[in-house]
């Protein structure tokens, strides 16, 4: 089991120091679509930074994030054991890579110094029928995490001195997402990847919207209606003109991924999670 711990440390290193190929490709496309020198230069710096981080094995961003694990555990293997191993690996990875210590005790306001604390890292485990253990890791930046929003439909959205109603339909969903992106502006390092969940329980939609950020950018939703919705909303978002680093231009988001869950008749939640351009995710199969 020592080797699994080393595997998780390696996973941390890979996720912190390199971004997935599909995200890098999307950023390169964004670069080639821009014309304004300042915006092109901003994307150029981002692409250079990705290269420097990868070749020098340094974190892409100084905010190495809130580590979130989604683990599929084969039958018979202890979930608690996996959790303990993740905590051990986190301590070592923080020192070795190094990661920025991000776990702050809410009561004492002290930073634990090793990225381990109460519910930190956050670990979701589920049993799988497969033989392999699958460990997915997301290093979630704090700036973009702060931009997340939960809407309860119907909702009144204010914009400037006006109001719009988001009703309980996909146009209402679209309006909520646009409202969230407008409020986000350039504060959380665009171009964003956006995860959305529509459903009937508050905790369920926040979990699902964040988990959508694990989907690859070219991934097309299996449901054609949702796939079309994702496309339309991405187009709309990119008409807002917020752009790279909030400096304007054509690419405010590189992808939007929507999940659905059956809802209670009384409830219609729309939850939105943002990832900065450095959407850091990775998988270890054991």
């Amino acid at each position, binding site marked *: 089991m020592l080797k699994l711990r080393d595997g998780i440390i390696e996973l941390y290193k890979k996720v912190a120091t390199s971004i997935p190929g599909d995200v890098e490709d999307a950023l390169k496309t964004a670069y080639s*679509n821009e014309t*304004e*020198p300042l915006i092109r*230069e*901003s994307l150029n*710096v*981002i692409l*250079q*930074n990705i290269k*420097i*981080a990868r070749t*020098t094995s*340094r*974190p*892409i*961003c*100084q*905010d190495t994030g809130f580590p979130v694990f989604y683990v599929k555990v084969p039958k018979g293997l202890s979930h608690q054991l996996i959790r303990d191993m993740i905590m051990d690996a986190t301590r070592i990875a923080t020192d070795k890579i*190094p990661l*920025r*210590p*991000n776990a702050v005790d809410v009561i004492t306001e002290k*930073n634990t110094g090793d990225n381990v604390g109460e519910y930190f890292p956050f670990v979701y485990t589920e049993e799988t029928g497969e033989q392999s253990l699958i460990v997915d890791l997301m290093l979630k*930046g*704090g*700036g973009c995490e*702060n931009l997340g929003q939960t809407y309860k439909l119907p909702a009144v*959205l204010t*914009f*400037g001195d*006006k109001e*719009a109603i988001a009703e309980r339909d*996909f*146009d209402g969903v679209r309006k909520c997402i*646009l409202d969230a992106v*407008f409020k986000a*502006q*350039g*504060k*959380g*390092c665009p171009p964003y990847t956006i995860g959305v969940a529509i459903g009937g329980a508050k905790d369920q939609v926040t979990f699902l919207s964040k988990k959508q950020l694990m989907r690859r950018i070219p991934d097309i939703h299996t449901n054609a*209606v949702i796939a*079309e919705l994702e496309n*339309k909303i991405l*187009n*709309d978002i990119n*008409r*807002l*003109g*917020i*752009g790279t*680093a*909030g*400096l*304007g*231009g*054509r690419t405010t988001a590189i992808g939007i991924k929507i999940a659905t869950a059956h809802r209670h008749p009384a409830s219609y939640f729309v939850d939105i999670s943002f990832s*900065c*351009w*450095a959407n850091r995710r990775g998988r270890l199969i054991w």
Partner: protein
Amino acid sequence: MLGKQKGKADMVEKSAVSSQQSASKRINTPLTEDIVMSLRIGDIVLVNGLIVTGRDKVHKFLAHEKPDKKDIPFELHDGIIYHCGPIIKKVDDTYKLIAAGPTTSMRVEMYEADVIKTYGIRGIIGKGGMGEETLNAMKEYGCVYLHTISGAAAYLADRIKNVRDGWKIEEFGAPEAMWLLEVEEFPAVVTMDARGNSLHRDIEKISLTKLKELFLEKRGIS
């Protein structure tokens, strides 16, 4: 796909950051009022000299406790505060900087005007821009906001030559401490100047106009 859109979308792209690109300007700390007043939004600058980091805890502390200047180990007057929580590793007796990009500036909006006024800050480096209160303080006291590329932590760390010292490391934790950094050709864009102009406000206005249009379109899924 977006490149094919004509008309209004094209206008949006051009209006905020017009093509008034200038060659980059080299500025040295401590900044003078003349330097600050010479900078306009859209200018690209390369910062050289000493700067200090300060983020959430530092700002809350400075604004609430108002420590005496003599109790702060670094000179803040005419200086630059960098909104940054770096990764710094202590190797023997020296601090090694690993990664150091900007953090979201807007979180310290409630403190910044006060900090600029009390400590005579001439420059803020951060990301995402700041609000009206800070913009007004910048105009009143002569200060600029220098936007640097978010998430470019390795790229920017390579332009920080030295970690001179740190303050409040134990108390605030390493990411939130005040670090004294020596920078060389550190790149940034002036996005809020001392004349009351803000590129962030301009972009927000443009996106609000677009948002209104998009809200009015009934584009439900068929």
